[in-house]
């Protein structure tokens, strides 16, 4: 099974394909050509549930051994591959010998996943249909030997080309960003992407290897830190000639130095009358500074794509002037930030995100120079007590302190606006600061047997669902410090007593989460209730102008739920090469961030186990293939429902459901 129903398949049209692919809505159908994911008709088996492995004594020294081979017509052993075995207590690795063989001895009872990797190959898990898919766990009994594990890895693809300047000369040392583009659907663009960092050599040649099949944005950036945002002048040769002639006229053709005593005629070069600024920024293949205009390069497994050449050139740069206003009058340490507004996350050396930060003057005025074309988000914020850098006559001082109670109680102010920059200067941008709502809350526990920790720590975070949000609110410890840029979460420190405060949350749609080291073991986050709504199921939408919100309660519980069972073939043998999916019957929660959707790969013995789904009604189904990054979609799940079983998970309940694939 090559490709998936959602990948950018390497079609004949190759690079230059439109993003609006026709097959992006190609969804699995149980019948019909082009079928790639097969729904399985399941029969429920009412067999005695097997004792969970965790209940057995973890004794016995088992062995897992096998080979790593490279895929191809004639599988060849892969020497010096690193095989990593995860499961149980931590992970272990082994190196394959000259025959591609590896062995793990002294393996305890448990379920283990094995992944093979080697530079220039794509890491692949044992039992995975292809790279990127989860593997099949090997269930090992006490003293058991599993000696026939074969892990197939594939050679990665290569993208190579030359970066040249506008005169055709090679650009050595250019930093290349090769960024995997996820699915072409707009909401999928919001995902961060994988990148690899490559530099052109002295001949301007770059070579990105070990790439998984798929689509990539390729960009070249200036050597060093990538971006030169300081503006510069570019004169054509004719303009340069004119400037030299003007200088000669005014200063005289003395050849060396003209006298400085006589008042000369004004030396005026053409450049001074129509001054244009240019700057260096990342240039995307085939030659644009605008990510939206970039052409993805699609590579098949193991393909070497040469000739992905980029012409690197400076681009027109604009100056943006504006004013920050505040009802409270002039404020110290306002930060104005110009960030690229985009769903695609690329390395900052290609696109600085946040690009530029400024403190406006006492009159609230600010100027950004050297702004290259693109779509930007301009924000201003005022965080009372924030760290700031003070320049004095004698040097630079970074002043950072924990906010005083007064500062902590003061309102955070924010303003933002979108700006489309096309090389022309923009002036008169006004940012009117307004308060951001404060959200306070606490951590709670719903304990059955475990004892909640006496002292708490960690952070609560609000993660934006779309990346173009700027976050103002930050920790209340460590100074309420530096304000984050786009596409990052807002977080608040949990005090020892479990309370936390978001000092201000900007408009946006957020998902709540908490990282609490003290309650990591044995607990799970059951709910995040605010005004009767569970933010874990329904994201928090802030539109601006809200009042402060108090009483966000995040509850951890030790009441665990579990869905487990065994998947069998029609012949009654274990069926490990499938996916078991469990998803809520409530269609409104079929979102990419939904937590009531889970899948598992059955182990080598066919058993599967999904823990800590919130209580409720669910569908249970099995699929032949599933893209873990992109399966929580209504269009897909609607197809799965008819072939599903209906199960109900009770509070703290354990559902045991064995399955057999129908003949």
């Amino acid at each position, binding site marked *: 099974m090559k490709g998936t129903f959602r990948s950018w398949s390497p079609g004949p049209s190759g690079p230059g394909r439109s993003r609006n692919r026709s097959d992006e809505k190609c969804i699995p159908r149980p019948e019909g050509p082009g079928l790639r994911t097969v729904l399985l008709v399941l029969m429920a088996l009412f067999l005695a549930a097997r004792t969970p492995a965790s209940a057995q004594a973890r004794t016995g020294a088992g062995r897992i051994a096998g080979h790593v081979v490279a895929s191809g017509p004639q599988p060849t052993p892969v020497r010096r591959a690193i095989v990593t075995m995860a499961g149980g207590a931590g992970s272990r690795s082994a*190196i394959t010998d000259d025959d591609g063989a590896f062995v793990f001895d002294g393996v305890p009872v448990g379920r283990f996943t094995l992944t093979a990797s080697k530079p220039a190959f794509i890491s692949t898990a044992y039992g995975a249909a292809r790279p990127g898919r989860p593997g099949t766990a090997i269930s090992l009994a006490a003293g058991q030997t599993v000696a026939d594990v074969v892990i197939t890895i594939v050679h990665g693809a290569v993208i190579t080309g030359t970066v040249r300047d506008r005169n055709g000369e090679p650009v050595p*040392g250019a930093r290349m960003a090769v960024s995997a583009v996820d699915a072409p659907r707009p909401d999928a663009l919001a995902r961060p992407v994988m990148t690899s960092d490559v530099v052109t050599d002295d001949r301007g040649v770059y070579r990105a290897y070990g790439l998984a099949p798929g689509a990539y944005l390729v960009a070249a950036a200036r050597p060093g830190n990538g971006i030169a945002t300081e503006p*510069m002048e*570019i004169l054509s040769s004719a303009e340069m000639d004119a400037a030299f002639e003007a200088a000669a006229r005014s200063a005289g053709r003395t050849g060396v130095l003209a006298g400085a005593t006589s008042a000369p005629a004004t030396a005026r070069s053409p450049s001074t009358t129509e001054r244009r600024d240019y700057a260096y920024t990342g240039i995307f293949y085939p030659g644009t500074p605008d990510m939206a205009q970039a052409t993805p390069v699609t590579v098949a497994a193991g393909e070497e794509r040469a000739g992905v050449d980029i012409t690197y050139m400076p681009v027109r740069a604009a100056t943006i002037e504006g004013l920050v206003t505040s009802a409270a009058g002039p404020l110290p340490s306002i930060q104005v930030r110009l960030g690229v507004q985009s769903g695609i996350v690329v390395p900052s050396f290609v696109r600085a995100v946040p690009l530029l930060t400024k403190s406006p003057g006492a009159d609230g005025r600010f100027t950004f120079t050297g702004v290259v074309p693109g779509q930007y988000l301009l924000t201003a914020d005022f965080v009372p007590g924030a760290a700031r850098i003070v320049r004095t006559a004698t*040097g630079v001082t970074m002043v950072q302190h924990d906010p005083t109670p007064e500062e902590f109680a003061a309102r955070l102010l924010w303003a933002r606006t979108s700006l489309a920059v096309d090389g022309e200067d923009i002036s008169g941008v006004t940012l009117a600061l307004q308060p951001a709502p404060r959200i306070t809350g606490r951590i709670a526990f719903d304990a059955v047997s475990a004892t909640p920790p006496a002292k708490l720590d*960690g952070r609560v975070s609000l993660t934006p669902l779309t990346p173009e949000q700027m976050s103002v609110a930050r920790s209340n410890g460590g100074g309420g410090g530096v304000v984050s840029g786009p596409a990052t979460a807002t977080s608040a420190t949990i005090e020892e007593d479990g309370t936390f405060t978001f000092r201000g949350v900007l408009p946006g749609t957020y998902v709540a989460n908490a990282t609490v080291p003290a309650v990591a073991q044995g607990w799970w986050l059951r709910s995040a209730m605010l005004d009767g709504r569970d933010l874990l199921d329904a994201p928090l939408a802030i539109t601006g102008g809200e009042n402060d919100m108090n009483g966000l309660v995040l509850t951890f519980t030790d009441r665990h739920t579990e869905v487990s069972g065994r998947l069998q073939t029609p012949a009654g043998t274990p069926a490990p090469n499938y996916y078991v999916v469990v998803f809520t019957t409530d269609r409104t929660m079929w979102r990419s961030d939904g937590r009531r959707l889970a899948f598992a790969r059955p182990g080598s013995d066919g058993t599967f186990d999904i823990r800590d789904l919130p209580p409720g009604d669910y569908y249970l189904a099995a699929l032949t293939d599933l893209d873990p990054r992109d399966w929580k979609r209504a269009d897909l799940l609607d197809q799965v429902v008819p072939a599903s079983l209906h199960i109900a998970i009770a509070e703290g309940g354990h559902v045991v459901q064995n399955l057999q694939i129908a003949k």
Partner: protein
Amino acid sequence: MALSLRYGRVTVIVVAACIAALAQAPGAAQQVVPPFVPPGAATKPPSGTGVISGVVVDARTGAPLTDAMVTLTGRGIGALRQLSDAKGRFIFSQLVAGDYVSLHAAKPGYFDGAYGARDGKSQPVTLADGQWLQDLRVELVRPGVIGGTVVDERGEPIVGAYVRALAQLTVAGAPHVAVGPSAKTDDRGMYRLAGLSAGRYVVEVPSVATAVPTDTPASVVAGMLPVMASRGAVAPDYRAVDAGAHARLIVGNYAIPSPAGGQPQAYPIAFYPNAAGVAEAAPIDLAAGQERDGIDFQLRPVPTWRISGRVDGPASSIAGLLLRLVPPGAEDLGLGSEAATALVEKNGTFEFLDVPAGRYTIDARRSFAELRYNSQGFSNDPSLPTPGFVRSSGGGGDIAAAPLGTSYTYTSGAGDATMWAWQPIEVGGADLTDVVVTLRRAVSMTGRVVIEDTKRAPTTPAAGGLPQAPPPFVMVEPADGSTSLGIHTKRPDPTTLAFAVDGLMRGRYLIHTLGSNTTSITWNGHDYTYTPIDTSTGQDITGVVITIDPNVSPAKINGSVANVASHPHGAAVIAFPAEPAQWTNYGFQPRRIQAAAVTNSGTYQLSVPAGDYYLIAVDGDRIDAWQDPRFLQAAASSATRVSVDWNETRSQALQVTEVRP
């Protein structure tokens, strides 16, 4: 989080700083970097009547270079930037009169260059109203390249292997090895080390067998500070082979062969051509812009051994200590140059894995420094991965007393830096067990800064007065450039002005401050302002007094230089101390040796601390000739001797003299 403040030419990384302040920039800039100009200043349109124009050319061929970014920086004027045109030309019009301190050009594929200099220093120009300075020539030098292939014993390419150039050069008047650029082999096993300055190099394929105790948390392997780990930062899981009784071998960073017949193997560090050490390596003399291909390696596995034992010392010194197994010749090199590393367990036991036979030094320290030589953006950070090293602070700066592009970096690990060991060991034929590494106490230096305000009464903490500016950093650095002694930077307590520097090795150190108004450094009744302190006895150094007078500034020596016109590369003036003892062992930044390019109008200006000096004008090409002590020896006889005091301005006419050491 680490906060990196780059100011002037010294980078100081302060970890977990609450209030960090850098008060003073170090002395004169030596690198071709335009002064810091706040962004935005460039768009302020100039409104004068002067013109500066010129051309950017390839230094070797003389061919004009297109699209070089030319930056003209004026004192109090800001920076102007322009791209050179198809004929390599640039012209800045409507300039206000004044001092233009730097005219430099940058183009990918070339080293940065400056007007009137081949070796770094831009010749300053003075522009009058209505003046047209034309035909200013900026020459750019092409970097050299070393390339080749790395294959294993079967001839299969080794993918992702580090290849590193080490430069052999003179620092602080003594021969040293500096870490040059590194590259990684691609999927065909090929590498290219680009961006090399002319010089003498050896090329190596590093190989570090990194061992950590079996139960080492991933956060430690990832080098995370405990404070970050406790805040819930998640470290990436690491890949490791269970190789020892209580230790695991981290895999994935360096090529590792599989065991042969149960015996673990390693690819030892390889120097071109298949040499085991720096001393046996064949140096490659690279001319400017030269390309050397075919520097190929074939790595061959060798049997390896384990070294296990314990570290003897106070518990606080053992916790988190990283032991480095350093091969001969690599003592002055930093992290990534080891044959093996081992993380010491809480109970003091350690185990090195996969050690090839040979002689080594077990280096038990918390702080490492190394020299680096020029990479100018052609490669990534040459730091090699060192799992298990938890870095807490570090920094570095450019070295004036070395070829342009030489710098130093230092890195300190978390934990007690006052105990150390340097223990030779030989392994081969069998595992070594029960090795005891005994820590001994490092030398510490304590002292205080005295602000001696000659206009007011001396300000002391007891008097309740505080200086306006925070006291400058105190630096204690190896007098002859040997980085194995470590480089130590401390900021005195802002209230008491006391400072304490721990972890000094045994050797000769020079003390100086990042400030230009240090009038004396004394200890034990002797003057160490420009003389190294010797720590060979192992005795602590207490009561160092650094005297700063905020009212003094260095003496200015200026004047005109005759017969400049007959020198195509202009002229330079070098000031050096009259005391021959100060012609060597002056550390990285000799304050009493200064060199400046002569301006277009035939004048020069130098700033030096008070004292007796020799002055000599030489061809512009020889502006760095003072780095060779033999030059100073030869120049003294034909130089002009002057004596200057603080705050003094002295005029001295010179003429260009040829010096033959």
